[in-house]
């Protein structure tokens, strides 16, 4: 393995992000080639976490843009500070000066509200990590707009002119695949798919992230979650759910799993009524031990 890739993996693990070779390789390539990284995977497998850890690893700022349908330039890029502009106009009503001069002050940096994309472009110093979260939730207009930004990292504000990035931010996009992203956007990015972790990897994650967990309990939690992902559930629990559950069990001072405690806490990892009944059925049939002893 390339030394740098191993180092990326080590550093990420030091930041308590348990990772594998594919993740480390893609993250390393994203920074080495200066390309955006598109991360896809099931909900709760740690896609967003990658950007956060990356920012910590690089010792830089994380700028996050949460996407949603109807997200537009004024929320993603910039907006003028209207109340302040109005106040300024009022205060300067009697002041001398031409309209053009007044307008120039009105549309200057002081009145500009930088939204995440512009903030990332105008960032000084170490390039920031720009996280464009859940890009599949935005609509196609925004995707096209994003494509433009990602290709040359410059923005034209009609009132101010063109602003170019001094240093290119490291861009991470995440998608839950609720809709297919455009081919053009995919082509522009390196691609990383994060699957549910293996038993061993998940066990390490649970143990690292939730201290105070007994060895037996950690194995049982992981076993149950791994078994559940192999069942036909309407919503499979992610790693985020295993961590929630583990934290809940620690708070309840449980040191092993029994039927009662599972029934009491299954809301931590199952989020669907039908899935609830399915697990209850398994418990009624006395299959908890079988679920918990799963080890890959």
């Amino acid at each position, binding site marked *: *393995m*390339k*030394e*740098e*890739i191993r180092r990326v993996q080590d550093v990420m693990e030091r930041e308590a992000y348990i990772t594998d*070779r*594919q993740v480390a*390789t*893609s993250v*390393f*390539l994203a920074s*080495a*080639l200066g*390309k955006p990284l*598109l991360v*896809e995977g099931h909900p709760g497998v740690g896609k967003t976490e990658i950007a956060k850890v990356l920012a910590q690893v690089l010792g830089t700022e994380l700028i996050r843009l949460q996407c949603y*349908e*109807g997200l*537009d330039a*004024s929320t993603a890029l910039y*907006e*003028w500070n*209207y109340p302040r*502009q*109005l106040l300024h*106009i*009022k205060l300067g*009503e009697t002041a001398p000066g031409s*309209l053009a001069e*007044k*307008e120039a002050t*009105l549309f200057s940096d002081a009145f500009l509200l930088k939204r995440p994309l512009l903030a990332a472009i105008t960032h000084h110093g170490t390039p920031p990590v720009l996280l464009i979260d859940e890009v599949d939730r935005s*609509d*196609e*207009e925004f995707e096209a707009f994003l494509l433009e930004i990602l290709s040359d990292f410059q923005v034209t504000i009609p009132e101010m002119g063109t602003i170019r990035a001094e240093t290119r931010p490291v861009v991470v996009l995440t998608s839950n695949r609720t*809709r*297919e992203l455009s*081919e053009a956007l*995919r*082509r522009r*990015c*390196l*691609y*990383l*798919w994060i699957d549910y972790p293996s038993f061993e990897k998940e066990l390490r994650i649970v143990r690292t992230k939730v201290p105070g967990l007994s060895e037996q309990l950690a194995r049982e939690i992981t076993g149950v979650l791994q078994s559940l992902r192999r069942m036909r559930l309407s919503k499979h629990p992610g790693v985020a759910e295993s961590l929630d559950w583990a934290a809940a069990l620690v708070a309840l001072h449980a040191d092993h799993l029994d039927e009662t405690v599972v029934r009491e806490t299954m809301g931590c990892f199952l989020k669907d009524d039908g899935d609830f009944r399915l697990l209850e059925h398994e418990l009624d049939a006395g299959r908890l031990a079988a679920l918990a002893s799963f080890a890959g």
Partner: protein
Amino acid sequence: MTERVAPPPPADLLATVVTLCRLLRERGVAATPAESIDAARSLAVVDLFDREDVRLALRSVLVSRRDDFDAFDAAFAEVWSVAWGIPSPIPLPGPRREMIKPPTPAPPRQPAVSLQNWMKPSEAEGSDPITVRAASDNESLGARDFAQYAAEDDAAFAALARRIARRLTLRRSRRWKAARRGRRLDLRRTVRSSLRTGGDAIRLERRSRKIRRTTLVALCDLSGSMELYARFLLQFLHALQNTFARVETFAFATRLSRLTPLLRGVHYRECLRDLGREVQDFSGGTRIGASLRTFLDRHPKLVDRRTIVLVMSDGWDVGDPAVLAESLRVLHRRAGRVIWLNPLMGAADYRPDTRGMQAALPYIDVLAPGHNMDALQKLVRHLAV
């Protein structure tokens, strides 16, 4: 854990990357020239002695969706073992290998059975009862012979078409546009225009939600097995075409033809006459997959995220189910929604277990019956993206 083999010299390395990209393209994993360049760049920063490093790096660059991982891994295994001097069991492809099997010869040309039948005036065959497949559906309209849907029912179709058109045109987007009588203030423009009046906002600029533009693409099966329903469905499409501007209609059996201009006429009967003249070679069998592929090839820009694709077919496909699955997969990926209207679903005991329907199921958002007026009425609520 990892294999360490000496890499080939740089020139060969580049050739290998190019071969890999070509192989991927042949297998339907689009690897653009820009990506080949990035692939070469990525090899400069990884450990070339480490097969796993190379594989993961190239996959990161060349593949852009999870579904293509297996295709990549297979192609990589072939190219890698050749390039790195390990004998490969699989020969490398020649420069021009046919990816798609040539279509099997079409069945002999037959006259357009169904269309010819429609040309007969329905009054003349009024005494001739036709058993419809949707035998279990005893609703007044459902049990009715579709041939009776003639001029007098135009109004019913027109009303339905209007409902659908309203639904498709009145969807509000989450985006804003400037509007004279919008419900919300547009502060940005208000501030701008208030400059002219010394900061007093004399005119309040407004904005409103944009209308979401939805288009409809209908692909109607006109093969022999669809005869009873096709007439009915075409009349529905005719009504729709005359109410709603953004509809495109295609017909297919063994081949594909565009009906949009033919359906634009005001009177359905006249349109039918034109259809009969224009659309000559519909024969017994259906090649749904091949027809859909033709559609995708010929009209690549027609379907996007704001398009609802309506496939009207009974799913009796004489073609290769794999072709059907593949074309539908692509269609499903591009379209906002894929709705399959299957007239046979009108029967209570219908199960979609023909090979064609089985291949199609994973790529359909809604599978609905389309055998009578009620079924079409119920369809309306699914028509949104």
